[in-house]
């Protein structure tokens, strides 16, 4: 209710703003010979084509906008560390900067803003960015909210996942051919899952005569992000993220009664050998290795990955390998009838802002407007260039060219696009149409059964500086303790009788203070 009201308010405000209105710019709005913007960001995910090299799509955008881009790029895995030092030193800042540590956590955005490193953009947007104004204040007010800082200013624009979130979701990928071989149905409750996993372990579905199957495994550093997809059977939102937003209340899922039951269930799986004896594999290459040995019964990932796991498993050479099939199945339902809730990926990813050293913020904002919100520029960024990466059909829809769809170097769609400079991770504003074209037909179809249960995750609220300091200081100990205890409960090193004292200890460490901070952030989010 509250949320609606606030959205309405935002919309009304936005309308009044828009009517004051940004005027449409004419292309090119820059002078190619003199106008340059420096952009610091993580480099292209397709490593063979650095943004710093001439790439067709990015070059064409330079021509259209009349703005040359000086790419100041760092290897993505090291970007945050490098840029934190550079921003802290505060000398020689780029015009536009990808904010370090901003993927999945907007903690640092407001921090840099309050240090004066990032400049407020809303007035510039109102004045110079007609498409962006329309997008964040009219078409997607939730995006506008996600971009607004606690002090009411807008300091950043962010990668927008909306389009792909509606198409693909993470979920449980299960060896359905093993089900068929063992005459089992797709499990829908915790008990049925137990039966299926037990059968995987004991009835040799891969047919090699050994009980070497690993019925269930996880590869992430936080095992709950995979095992957590079974948490729905105990009324938890999957994967079991620590905090969820239940009608405006910040709820710590670890404190819910279902969480203890969930751990008890996982403990049963572990002690009976139905779960990876390693608990979690720690990295994805190990996951691929086990799949390619035809050992893995189930784990959670994006639907697209099913094809990869399947392809490797088919070559394992076990009697049943050739039939290998991974399909996305829905998380189990709870016995008490609580509906299945799957947490979607957050709305926004990488964030970027304009720094105080930018000599021509007007140009920077226009450029961002063009590549992010202008339908023409946005589509060039996403799809690339007509003829090169796509062709337009009679009905106006697009089809990938062979270069993208059947890439001569064996690249998938995302990598093929990136090899010519399209679909740069940080700057993509993903539309639904694009999402449908990015993922394979099969992945999109399989995700459908799951996507309907998606709810929004805990919103990424920008924290104030005090909040950030407090969170950093509290969560260092609490996170350590919780991850330790959760593993001990699951592997049976600590008896589940100790669960209550575990939560008690966390409260003693300041667990409630942490919850209060998140609650305060949530309140701010809804009152905006």
């Amino acid at each position, binding site marked *: 209710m509250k949320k609606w009201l606030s959205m309405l308010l935002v919309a009304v405000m936005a309308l009044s703003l828009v009517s004051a209105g940004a005027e449409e710019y004419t292309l090119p709005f820059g002078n190619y010979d003199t106008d340059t913007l420096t952009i610091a960001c993580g480099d292209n*995910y397709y490593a063979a084509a650095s943004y*710093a090299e001439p790439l067709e799509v990015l070059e064409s955008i330079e021509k259209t906008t009349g703005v040359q881009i000086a790419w100041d790029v760092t*290897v993505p895995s090291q970007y945050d560390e490098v840029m934190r*030092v*550079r921003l802290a030193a505060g000398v020689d800042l780029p015009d536009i900067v990808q904010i370090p540590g901003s993927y999945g956590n907007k903690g640092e955005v407001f921090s840099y803003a309050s240090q004066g490193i990032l400049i407020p953009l809303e007035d510039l947007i109102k004045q110079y960015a007609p498409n962006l104004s329309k997008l964040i204040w009219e078409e997607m007010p939730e995006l506008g909210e996600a971009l607004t800082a606690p002090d009411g200013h807008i300091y950043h624009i962010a990668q927008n996942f909306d389009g792909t979130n509606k198409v693909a979701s993470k979920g449980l990928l299960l060896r359905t051919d093993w089900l068929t071989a063992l005459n089992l149905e797709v499990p829908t409750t915790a008990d049925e899952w137990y039966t299926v996993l037990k059968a995987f372990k004991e009835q040799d579905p891969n047919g090699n005569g050994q009980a070497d199957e690993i019925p269930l495994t996880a590869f992430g550093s936080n095992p709950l992000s995979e095992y957590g997809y079974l948490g729905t059977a105990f009324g938890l939102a999957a994967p079991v993220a620590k905090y969820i937003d239940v009608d405006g209340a910040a709820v710590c899922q670890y404190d819910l009664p279902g969480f203890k039951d969930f751990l008890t269930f996982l403990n049963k799986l572990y002690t009976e050998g139905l779960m990876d004896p390693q608990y979690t594999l720690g990295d994805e290459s190990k996951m691929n*290795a086990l799949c390619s040995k035809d050992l893995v019964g189930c784990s959670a*990932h994006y*639907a697209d990955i099913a094809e990869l796991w399947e392809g490797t498993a088919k070559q394992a050479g076990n009697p049943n390998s050739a039939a290998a099939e991974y399909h996305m199945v829905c998380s189990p339902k709870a016995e008490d009838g609580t509906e299945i809730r799957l947490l979607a990926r957050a709305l926004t990813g990488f964030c970027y802002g304009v720094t105080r050293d930018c000599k021509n913020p007007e140009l920077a904002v226009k450029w961002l407007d063009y590549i992010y919100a202008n339908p023409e520029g946005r589509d060039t960024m996403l799809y690339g260039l007509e003829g090169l990466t796509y062709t337009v059909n009679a009905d106006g829809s697009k089809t990938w060219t062979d270069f993208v769809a059947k890439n001569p170097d064996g*690249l998938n769609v995302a*990598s093929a696009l990136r090899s010519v400079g399209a679909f740069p991770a940080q700057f993509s504003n993903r539309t639904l149409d694009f999402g449908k074209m990015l993922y394979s037909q099969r992945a999109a179809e399989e995700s459908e059964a799951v996507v309907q249960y998606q709810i929004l995750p805990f919103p990424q609220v920008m924290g104030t500086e005090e909040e950030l300091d407090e969170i950093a200081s509290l969560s260092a100990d609490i996170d350590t303790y919780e991850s330790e205890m959760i593993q001990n409960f699951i592997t049976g090193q600590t008896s589940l009788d100790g669960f209550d004292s575990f939560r008690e200890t966390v409260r003693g460490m300041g667990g409630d203070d942490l919850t209060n901070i998140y609650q305060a952030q949530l309140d701010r989010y809804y009152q905006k």
Partner: protein
Amino acid sequence: MIQIQKSNHHAIRRSGSDITIDVVVWFIGLLALVVTLVPFLHVIAMSVSDPSLVSRQEIYLWPKGVNFDAYRMVMQNKMFWTNYGNTLWIVCVGTLVNIFLTVTLAYPMSRTQFFLRRPIMKLITFTMFFSGGLIPLFIIVNKTGLYNTRWAVILPYAINTYNLIVCRTFFEGIPDSLVESARLDGANDIRVLFSIVLPLSKAILAVLVLFYAVAHWNSYFPAMLFIPKTDLQPVQVYLIRVLIQDTEALAEEGSAGYSRALIVEQLKYAVIIVTVLPVAVLYPFLQKYFVQGVMIGAIKG
């Protein structure tokens, strides 16, 4: 000299304990050989095997289904060679700078009668413990105009205090009488260093070359921080970029091409070979300076 020594060894009748030592030494040598060769063979085998077997982690010490795709992928890019050239430049120039500064500082620090020796050694040791961190260093690199030049990864790392102290300790082992007699002959300290001390210190110079060159060769973080310009970066930065390819994209998108996902695992190993080989061959060349008796020979000559 060596010859004489060898014959001397043989001239002495072997006692029981000598034979025990021989056996123990052989045993240690063989053990070291096996234990250290294993990881290396593993890496080589992984880098040239069939990617699908690599991804299954079924390769141990011997390659199966020989395949050089990973090498091709590492080296196909123009930038690889540009960056390789930068690395060579940085290693050569950097090591020269390192050796020069280390030796010229280590020598005065090794003269026990030098009145500034103790205060300066204390100042230097202090920096092993207290440093202002990267942020002020970044500002200095920026202010001195080194930013975005290859010197930015050389000058701020011109002396490694650990190496300096090792070098000084070695210099201290050189008999004072040698230095004194040269000084009586009228040579000043600079001449003594270059014409008496250094010729006696080939072993430690070899160690310094090795330590510094390898450190330059392996270093990447300063380059990322101080040299944003891609075509000035060393090859390590390029290789890290190649390595993370798709693995990060996988985490972000949950999508990666099937054949590429396989090869990414293998790339890691090809990258090691590509980077290790050039420095690994450095050692055998330097080894000849680790010969006992060089010093005395030089003194007598």
